[in-house]
């Protein structure tokens, strides 16, 4: 995956950190100090479909060639997360118990075109 930066407008991962102190949540979330709410943004022209994130297969390659060959065919391709990991949280619930859990797929590690 590619991280956003510079002037490129192509599909990339934009880092965005939510500081729990800034939103007033530090009193009930013990750990971590914030949430890396990265997201995917940028253009996915037809020739980029299927790369770099999604596993390229023979079928993907063939479809990309067809799409590139017929530029008049309007096929949308999206910049989406291709690799994600869980967010581990340690927090107080409303009974002041301490709860630890891993919320799956909350942090985007890389992006790619569908």
């Amino acid at each position, binding site marked *: 995956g590619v991280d956003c930066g510079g002037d490129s407008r192509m599909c990339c991962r*934009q880092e*965005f950190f*939510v500081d729990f102190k800034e*939103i007033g*949540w530090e*009193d*009930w979330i013990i750990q971590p100090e914030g*949430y890396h*709410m990265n*997201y*995917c*943004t*940028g*253009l*996915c022209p*037809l020739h980029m479909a299927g790369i770099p994130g999604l596993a390229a297969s023979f079928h993907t390659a063939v479809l990309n060639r067809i799409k590139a060959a017929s530029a008049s065919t*309007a*096929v*949308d*391709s*999206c*910049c*989406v997360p291709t690799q994600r990991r869980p*967010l581990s*949280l340690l*927090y*107080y*619930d*409303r*009974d*002041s*118990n*301490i*709860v*630890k*859990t*891993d*919320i*799956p797929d*909350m942090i985007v590690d890389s992006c790619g075109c569908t």
Partner: protein
Amino acid sequence: GARGEWCPACGVATLAPGTQRDALLALAKQSILTKLRLPARPSAPQPPARGALLAALRRLRARERSDTAVLPGMLRDGPVPQLSRGMGLQEYEILSFAESGSSTSRSVRLHFRFSQELAGSTDILQATLYLFWAVPSPGTRPVTIRILQADPAGPNMTVSSETQLDVQRSGWTTLDVGPAVRTLFGQETLRLTVELEVPEDWGSPLPADHNDSHWPFVVARAQARTPHRIHRR
């Protein structure tokens, strides 16, 4: 944006920077609360004493390093194991500290509360009660631990299980309370009540105050409930 240029999912990128930031923060809050099954952020939590919390976390860390198992209903000293993760469902580890209830010269009651949010959407895999015995002088002392259950017919409590043991020295004891917490999660009142009965010359089996690092606690492991399948005919 124009067709083929921007995806609907990337709409946030087209917002003005200030609005974009507000939208992302609102999205982050909503996303975390939804995944934790919380209708709103818990208000004004009352954190346990630092000493009690550190002691509990140390016990948990020791437990995770252990490979030995606790049999249902079995009492033992020392650590208990971490469960293996199954089916990829979200798991929770809940640490609940005791609230002291009524007491007599021979007995004391402890209450452990659990939240409705988790009870409605998770299944209890394991629950362990940690108790610390502070033995004032050498010798064997008989102790009775009762798990009490609210009587649906009235205000009284009924004994759902009773365990007796001889305490010979100061230290931690663990008790499997999984069945009791599991039963509790199916009821309206999510409060586990434990009664400790000790010899009269012992005094209170509890530390003098909540700040003590030997304060009793329950560790419960829960797993998100598998969604029910709906069949259409």
